[in-house]
């Protein structure tokens, strides 16, 4: 590649930069300022240096929350990505049923997070919820307020219910863009269903799939509202993910310094993973010649 890159086009995004400065950069700078100071309120701050970072790095509480967060993201990605592809592969390709499927698949995506949490909170209750009551009637010991396993299952199933359709819709869009000629060639070669998927469909939807993985990873890694509404981070700390712990620390205990140090480290992890995904995505695009 001998083409030189003209970077002047970056000036065109100046208006966005101004907006982002107010919505993200200035608050982020404030968080950095908080992370090296201590406060007891009244806008009075005392220099603490790297003390909060040191404390957070040695805090078992933060590592536990990070462990739970990684486990949660890994589980929902392992379920939602294959399930989304499976659903997309089985959706009608055109006609009335295709439109109906698309509308039905979009519905969970339109529901606000706190409403999803409330729906599942009631749905899972043993006394009045359809799911909880039915499971209890079948003799299954299910109580997400007392049993950590039940709480985890509820939070995971809720996320799968809410977000698998996003993966399915993206995979569906990718599948729709594959020209018929590929399938005809596969038919001539007498390729079976698995080989069509493995060598035609999967490589062709890899680009959108990476976007789906990136979106789902970032969203699940930052998840707050849904588990907070359903379990409140409990029982005990069983479903206390990073953002729930962070809010507890910053607003519940008003430990602004440690919470700021915590959120900077949280931000760095998300930035690193997003950069890796972004690099993989752009490299895939270049390989495919887009």
């Amino acid at each position, binding site marked *: *590649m*001998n*083409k*030189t*890159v*003209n*970077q*002047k086009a*970056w000036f065109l995004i100046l208006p966005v930069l101004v907006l982002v400065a107010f919505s993200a950069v*200035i608050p982020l*700078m*404030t968080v*950095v*300022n*908080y992370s*090296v*100071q201590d*406060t007891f309120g009244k*806008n009075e*701050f005392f*220099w603490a240096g*790297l003390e909060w*970072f*040191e404390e957070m*790095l*040695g805090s078992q509480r933060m590592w536990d929350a990070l462990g739970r967060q990684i486990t949660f993201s890994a589980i929902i990605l392992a379920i939602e990505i294959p399930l989304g592809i499976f659903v997309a592969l089985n959706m009608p390709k055109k006609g009335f049923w295709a439109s109906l499927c698309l509308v039905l698949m979009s519905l969970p995506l339109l529901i606000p997070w706190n409403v999803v949490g409330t729906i599942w909170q009631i749905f899972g209750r043993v006394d009045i919820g359809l799911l909880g009551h039915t499971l209890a009637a079948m003799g299954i010991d299910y109580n997400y307020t007392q049993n950590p396993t039940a709480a985890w299952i509820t939070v995971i199933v809720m996320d799968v219910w809410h977000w698998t359709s996003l993966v399915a819709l993206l995979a569906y869009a990718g599948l729709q863009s594959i020209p018929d000629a590929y399938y005809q060639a596969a038919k001539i070669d007498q390729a079976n269903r698995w080989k069509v998927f493995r060598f035609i469909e999967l490589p062709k939807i890899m680009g959108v799939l990476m976007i789906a993985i990136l979106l789902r990873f970032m969203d699940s890694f930052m998840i707050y509202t849904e588990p907070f509404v359903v379990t409140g981070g409990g029982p005990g700390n069983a479903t206390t993910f990073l953002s729930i712990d962070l809010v507890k620390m910053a607003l519940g205990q008003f430990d602004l310094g440690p919470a700021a140090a915590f959120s900077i*480290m949280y931000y*760095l992890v998300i*930035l*690193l993973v997003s*950069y890796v995904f972004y*690099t993989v995505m752009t*490299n895939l695009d*270049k390989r495919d010649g887009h």
Partner: protein
Amino acid sequence: MDWMAWTWPTAIFFIIIAATLVVFTVLAIKFPETPRNGVLGIETTRGDRLFITLLGSAFINLAWLGMLSAPQWGALIVCLIYAAAVFRWA
């Protein structure tokens, strides 16, 4: 600006970051470059290498702080070596 709780060290930190971004923007305009493939196996421009340097340096500093009880300026030396390596080979 009181609500942002500024301190001199954090102000200097952000001034250095902002100045670096300005320098790299000017460099990119004055001396347009060709992206190259380095040891990371990905195409990088100067801006990419700066980003990799800054992000990596943050993690180096955190690792130093969490694992060693040595003074923090030691991490800065490691970061400078890392930066030189990224700009030379990445």
